[in-house]
């Protein structure tokens, strides 16, 4: 029987986890059994994500392919889901757990992305095309941390709307800066691309060649004969390597949330006055949380740069980038950490479903195949055929429908999908599933 | 029949159970005082009547009509006026504008202003001043004026003497007495002598319930009966 509180997701504390997954009296389980039980759901999700490329190719090549090609996102979209999902999770880390809405979060994402590319292009002393990608990721993250400390030191004197606006202001300054500064490139408005290095960025143990795999749709490594039977395309390899980084990052953030530090973060969200009265230096905790969230946002940006090998001011620094993270968090659930990843997965799935892009997956080709050319050509109004109507009102305009959904969620499902599920079952889903296995 | 009747009212602030079953009756024409320590729920009682903080349980009737569930402005429109703690002037509006806001009918503004300034001549000389520039005593008069021009039959007055010098308190008491001649008043006041002087009856509130009540003519300010419920 869970205690329902006014604000959701305060139930995701470490106490709940341990309290409800203690073995029955008299039995002592080995630590790994305990760990496995507590993380059954995590393992299941990770297993599913790991199997996804395989599932996708299986379904695409099967008789039922049409339906699935239409609905399931392509593997390369999934790569974006992963690294932007990490960004969205870092956004939730600060906004969902401390209650301070970081509307300027794109600043850190853009910093990570730009740093990786500029460093690889030799713009900074000390780093260059030969620097291991993993090192660049960490350095980009640290750069974002430094930025966060500066921004946070000034911004955390305020709260609420003011905090959101001032962080937005900072991120827009950076946006304009990067858009117009010639140091960045010859046509800064168009963004920058990797020119200093032709081969793909490698993720793995730096220096150990055998434990590194390159990412990138064209530059990535293809793997043949893994475990004797499996082969992976460069995109699939990118998916796994990026996924690995995201996974490690997620667990790191999760550890912090479930630690005393994380509990103070939540206390700040629930009632900052009281937290301060108890004796916590809330300013330091907020700054710390902000810095941590910036670190992972920077890493996410670095992954973007590593995979796409180019970035524009719009895709890195523009405030709507943080808006997308906000959207992901609302759909998935603020203060759930994993929720935003699912929220973004949903967002990208719908966008791809309704994308205008050529034949590759989507509503229009599917309908075309199934309703037949005649139905598609039927005139609805003023010479507009069904096909044209779909192309005009649906395709490429996922933002409208997702936006409407977003509004509906804010009104009726304010805790997002994951958040609502957690409320319903009184605890993180991991603990719920863990209890089944007792 | 009572003008205002609170029956087993329970009000919460969040999860905090502030009013744990309040029963109060106020009859037309009288002045009733609520006495008690800080934090026992006196202000909350007034706020509950006005539906500023809606009671979770119990009933509050005014002239027989249930108030719980109505909007604050609907309660006010039925003739209840609020003269809150800290007066709550609209500081950036002038004295005159502060009064005008309280007048229910736009057409009556001029008449209402005349009447207010007649009762409080001190305010007339400062009619164009920003309300935030007034002294504490003048603000209290303005708050009273607002309550009176609102065509209210019942005034809910919260700590009118708070923060005022004794001489000013006397003036406030005079004004309240004058108002009491044609308006019913429910008064919250920590200044015991003032409360007993103004009121006909009293209720003592402790820990969110009524623990004692009676006629003010039966008690004095030094009475142990009352003192034990007040701050040391």
């Amino acid at each position, binding site marked *: 029987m869970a205690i329902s509180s006014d604000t959701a997701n305060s139930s995701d504390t470490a106490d709940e986890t341990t309290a409800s997954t203690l073995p029955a009296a008299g039995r002592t389980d080995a630590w790994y059994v305990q760990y496995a039980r507590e993380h059954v759901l995590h393992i299941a999700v990770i297993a599913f994500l790991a199997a996804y490329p395989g599932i996708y190719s299986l379904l695409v090549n099967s008789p039922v392919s049409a339906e699935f090609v239409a609905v399931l996102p392509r593997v390369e979209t999934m790569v974006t889901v992963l690294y932007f999902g990490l960004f969205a999770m870092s956004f939730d880390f600060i906004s969902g757990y401390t209650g301070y809405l970081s509307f300027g979060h794109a600043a850190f994402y853009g910093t990570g992305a730009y740093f990786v590319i500029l460093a690889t292009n030799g713009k900074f002393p000390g780093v260059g095309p030969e620097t291991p990608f993993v090192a660049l990721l960490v350095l980009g993250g640290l750069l974002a941390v430094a930025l966060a400390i500066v921004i946070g030191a000034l*911004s955390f004197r305020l709260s609420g709307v003011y905090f959101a606006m001032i962080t*937005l202001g900072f991120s*827009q300054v950076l946006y304009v800066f990067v858009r*117009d500064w010639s140091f960045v490139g010859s046509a800064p408005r168009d963004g920058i691309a990797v020119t200093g290095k032709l081969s793909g960025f490698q993720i793995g143990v730096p220096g150990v060649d055998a434990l590194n795999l390159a990412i990138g749709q064209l530059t990535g490594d293809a793997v043949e004969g893994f475990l004797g039977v499996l082969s992976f395309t460069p995109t699939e390899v990118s998916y796994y390597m990026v996924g690995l980084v995201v996974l490690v990052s997620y667990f790191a953030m999760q550890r912090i949330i479930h630690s005393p530090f994380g509990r103070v973060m939540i206390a700040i969200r629930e009632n900052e006055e009281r937290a301060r009265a108890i004796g916590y230096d809330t300013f330091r905790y907020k700054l710390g949380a902000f810095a941590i969230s910036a670190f992972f946002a920077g890493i996410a940006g670095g992954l973007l740069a590593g995979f796409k090998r180019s970035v524009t001011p719009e895709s890195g620094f523009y*405030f709507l980038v943080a808006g997308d993270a906000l959207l992901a968090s609302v759909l998935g659930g603020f203060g759930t950490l994993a929720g935003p990843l699912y929220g973004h997965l949903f967002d990208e799935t719908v966008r791809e479903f309704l994308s205008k892009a050529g034949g590759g997956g989507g509503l229009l080709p599917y309908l075309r195949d199934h309703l037949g050319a005649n139905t598609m050509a039927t005139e609805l109004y003023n010479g507009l055929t069904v096909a044209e109507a779909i192309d005009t009102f649906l395709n490429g305009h996922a933002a409208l429908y997702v936006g409407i959904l977003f509004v509906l969620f804010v*009104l009726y499902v*304010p805790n997002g999908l994951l958040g609502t599920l957690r409320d319903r079952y009184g605890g993180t889903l991991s603990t719920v599933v863990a209890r089944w296995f007792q | 029949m009572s003008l205002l009747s609170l029956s087993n009212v329970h009000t919460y602030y969040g999860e905090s159970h502030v009013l744990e079953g309040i029963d109060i009756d106020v009859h037309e024409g009288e002045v009733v005082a609520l006495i008690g320590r800080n934090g026992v729920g006196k202000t909350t009682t007034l706020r509950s009547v006005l539906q500023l903080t809606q009671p979770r349980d119990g009933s509050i009737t005014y002239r027989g009509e249930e108030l719980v569930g109505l909007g604050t402005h609907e309660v006010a*429109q039925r003739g209840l006026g609020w003269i809150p703690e800290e007066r709550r002037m609209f500081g950036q*509006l002038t004295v005159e504008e502060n009064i005008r806001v309280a007048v229910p009918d736009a057409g009556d503004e001029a008449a209402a202003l005349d009447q207010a300034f007649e009762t409080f001549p001190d305010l007339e000389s400062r009619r164009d001043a920003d309300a935030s520039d007034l002294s504490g005593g003048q603000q209290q008069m303005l708050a009273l004026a607002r309550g009176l021009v609102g065509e209210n039959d019942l005034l809910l007055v919260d700590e009118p003497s708070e923060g005022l010098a004794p001489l000013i308190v006397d003036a406030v008491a005079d004004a309240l007495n004058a108002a009491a001649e044609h308006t019913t008043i429910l008064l919250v006041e920590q200044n015991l002598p003032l409360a007993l002087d103004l009121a006909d009856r009293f209720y003592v509130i402790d820990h969110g319930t009524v623990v004692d009540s009676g006629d003010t003519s039966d008690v004095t300010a030094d009475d142990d009966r009352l003192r034990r419920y007040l701050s040391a």
Partner: protein
Amino acid sequence: MNGLVLLGDALVLSGFVDALVDFLGPSNLGTVLLDGLAKAALYVMIASGLTLVFGLMGVLNFAHGSLTMVGAYLGGLLLVLTAGTATGGVTRILLFLLAVVTVFAILAAVGGLLEVGLIRPIYDRPPLYQILLTFGVTLALDEFVRIVVSFYGIQPISEWQAALATKPAALSQSYAFAGVSARGLALFQILFGVATIVAIWAFLTKTRYGLFVRAGSEDGEMLAALGVDVQRVFTLVFALGTGIAGVAGVLLAWDPSWGASVPLAAETLLPAFVVVIIGGLGTFRGTVVAAGIVGMTDATMTWWFQNFVDFTGLPEMTIFLILVLTLVWRPQGLYGVSEVGGH
């Protein structure tokens, strides 16, 4: 090496001094002043609605920019439909005024519906939700407009040229007086801005509802306790705010540096935020003064960018830096009462 660096610095410094002297010359200064006032007028129009709504309701309407954009397209549509090539200048101005009135009415109605349907239900929730909700509205609305506009063959991203063309010729010209060159459009915008300021000021100080708005911006609870239906005042102010936003859009549809386009939503939202926060959330006086400051800064920095500093983003960056400085030094803004984070 040192000598060369010093020489380089000296050259830059002397170049700067030259530019400064140039800038302070009466004709340049005059032009910049007028440009600044025109920009200030636009900023006042873009920001007034936002400040009235936030001051009274504590709601930061993220969809404000989108509503300006809708106003620009609607106004542009009315003008394109009614102004033929032979229409005279005066008639065009009259048609413009007609468009303004129509757009105001339509957008005010839309605003009222928005408030009743979407804002009111979440009014009691933490302010975060209002930001989220209005953000969602902006996403959906922008995309919706994109669909409609593309459907009729108008490019959503570039400025609507046809609408720009409905301007009377008199406004596209520049006029010289007292050695200063003034664009006709700038003068028109200043006039409009002043008219708007006067109209809003009159509403706030001379009408009963204006009185309620000012009182409610200070203490909504007390206002309700005085018998005023604050909910109705909210709806009215929200409608008013969106109406003004729409009118600002119509004005912008005639300005080649803005123009009716979907990105106009974001282009106006950010400056609106800046102006409102520098001036003080909820004070109209603050918005007017801040619009003046931001407008003058914008015009000044634009001149400097065109004549000395090769950095396109100079005006924008300066303005954002002013925002940051304001929030650090005086978060409640120039005329703000206190750090109101909501209601």
